[in-house]
Each structure stands twice: as structure tokens, then as C-alpha cells.
């Protein structure tokens, strides 16, 4: 792995044809290669998520991270944008699907693309990764500790989330779930329920629940970071994408 790459902020068409900001990173070689859509966590389109995006490029995948808060807070600092989006109830599901569709179309249109596109998301992006994979033609999906995939949303909940339970039968691709045993959103029990539901629908689902880790164990800039778990989980993610994004 040479790790040579180029990365830049670009604009792509998202849901409803809206122009949204995105961070795109790609290996310097000519491909062909699989590609990954990276969905940032609830705290936003931040430096740590851009670092994840570059990591995928260094590992041989083209990767793009759309700024899911482009509309609410264009050009804002990530924390200000996240606060704005939170106060407004988060990202609407329909718009998320449109934004991921736009990102996937961009990736597939690149000359070095082999046509295969995966999606990975963290925290709120974990649920959104499953949501995208239940609505779009994708080749692989990774859910990193996304809450409310199978859990019901409580009354008075301030975000426009719903359980994805009714959509799981539409999952278009193999799904990998990476969870912390100490997390309660999602809880280990909910992750077991997710596995049972997906198995019932005949879907390919592999999950790992790591002891000694809670929510956001991938987040290198936060106290929740668990280096040993994150290193192991990174390896699992790369193996998963290498297997399923080898060809469309």
C-alpha cells in the first residue's frame, strides 16, 4: 500500500438535484477500483471524518463524504453546522437517500471506478448507511454503531427518525455491523434483533460487538476512542470492502 492519494472539497448533485458540498479522496493510481460513500456522525462533517475518507483512499478505494448539513449550514464550522441541524431535527431520511444516490453516481462516473460502491456510516451515519442500502443499489454497507435501526423511536423524539425494521427486507447488499458492547444506542440486544430480522429475510449480515468499547470507538479525537478495537475493526472493514467491492 503506497498510500498516494489526492483529496479535495467538491460539489456534487444531491437529493432533488441540490448542489451539496463533499470531500472526495482517491488513490493516485489509475484503478480500476471500488468506491465508498462515507457518512459522517451526528457531530458533523468534521476533520476526523475527512481523515477517515482519506484513509479509504490510502487503502485503494475512491471515497466521498457528502456534507449532510450543506443545506442548513453551508460553509459553517462543523460544530456550528451540527448544532443547527440538531435544532432542526436532523437530516430527513428521504433527503439522505438522495444525497447518497448522488454521491454513488459521482463515484461510478469516475474513469477509474469498477462500478462497485459501498457505504459506511458512523453514529447517526450508521443508521443512515442501512437506510441507504435498503433504498439504493449498492454492493456493500457498513453500520458503525447506528442507533434506531431496529429500535422504535420514543414518543416526543426530537429527530425525524423511524425504525428501519420495515425496510430491512429491501437490503440490496451484504451488511457489516460494528458495535460496542458498552453502547446502549444501539444496545447489544437490539443488534441481536437486527441479526435475527435480517436472517429471516435471507440477507447477508455479519456483525462484531467489541468488549471494552462503547459508542464511537472509531473517533480518534474523542475520549470514546478505543485504539485496539478501532485498529481491529478497520481491518474488518477493509477486508469486507475488498471482498464486496472487487467488482460491480
Amino acid at each position, binding site marked *: 500500500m503506497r498510500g498516494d492519494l489526492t483529496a479535495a472539497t467538491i460539489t456534487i448533485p444531491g437529493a432533488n438535484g441540490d448542489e451539496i458540498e463533499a470531500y472526495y479522496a482517491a488513490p493516485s493510481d489509475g484503478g480500476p477500483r471500488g468506491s465508498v460513500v462515507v457518512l459522517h456522525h451526528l457531530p458533523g462533517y468534521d476533520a476526523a471524518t475527512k481523515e477517515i475518507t482519506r484513509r479509504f483512499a490510502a487503502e485503494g478505494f475512491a471515497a466521498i463524504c457528502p456534507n449532510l448539513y450543506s443545506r442548513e449550514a453551508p460553509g*459553517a464550522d462543523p460544530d456550528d453546522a451540527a448544532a*443547527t441541524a*440538531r*435544532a432542526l431535527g436532523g437530516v430527513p431520511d428521504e433527503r439522505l437517500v438522495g444525497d447518497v444516490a448522488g454521491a454513488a453516481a459521482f463515484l461510478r462516473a469516475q474513469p477509474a471506478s469498477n462500478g462497485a460502491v459501498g457505504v459506511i456510516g458512523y453514529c447517526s451515519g450508521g443508521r443512515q448507511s442501512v437506510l441507504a442500502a435498503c433504498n439504493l443499489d449498492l454492493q456493500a454497507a457498513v453500520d458503525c454503531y447506528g442507533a434506531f435501526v431496529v429500535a422504535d423511536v420514543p414518543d416526543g423524539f426530537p*429527530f425525524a427518525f423511524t425504525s428501519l425494521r420495515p425496510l430491512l427486507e429491501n437490503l440490496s447488499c451484504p451488511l457489516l455491523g460494528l458495535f460496542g458492547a458498552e453502547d446502549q444506542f444501539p444496545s447489544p440486544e437490539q443488534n441481536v434483533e437486527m441479526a435475527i430480522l435480517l436472517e429471516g429475510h435471507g440477507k447477508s449480515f455479519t456483525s462484531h460487538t467489541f468488549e471494552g468499547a*462503547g*459508542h464511537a470507538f472509531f473517533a480518534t479525537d474523542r*475520549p470514546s476512542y478505543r485504539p485496539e478495537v478501532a485498529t481491529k475493526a478497520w481491518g474488518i472493514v477493509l477486508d469486507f470492502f475488498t471482498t464486496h467491492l472487487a467488482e460491480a
Partner: protein
Amino acid sequence: MCTYATTVLTIDGSAKGKIGWFSANQATVYFDHPVHFARRHALMVDLANPSEGPSARVGLELSPESARALAVAILDALDAVPPALFEADGGTR
């Protein structure tokens, strides 16, 4: 964990942040992962004015103990004020 639980309320006041002083008309309160405070979770408060853009915001990230102490101090300060001072501004305690 992300609790997602969020309370948004209308307020009347001013705050000073990145853009300087602004009229703050919205407060958001939640318990979640802080951006800067080196804890896994914190009580977060955003004082904002959405009409002036995302940067019209003052963010607080507090330990639960600090947040409760601050809340008590605010209430104590208000309780100690002579009612006439509220009435002078057309408000109430």
C-alpha cells in the same frame, strides 16, 4: 451512546460568540458527545440565533455536576432579585 434527546426552546437575550454579540432567541439543551470537552458525554447548551446563520451560536459543554450547579446558581440569582427590578423591564420573576 447518543441519546439524541434534545430540547429546543425560545429565549430572549443576547450572547457573544464567534461573530461578536448577537440577539439570542433559541436555546438547545441536550446530553451527548461533546466536541471539545474531554469526556464521553456532556450536558450541552447552544444559545443561538438561526436567522443570523450557524455561527451565531455560543456552545457550552458541561459535566453533569457543573450543569446542575450552574442551573442552581441561575435560579438562586433570580430568586435574590427584588421583584421591582423585574417589573421595571416589564418582566416577571
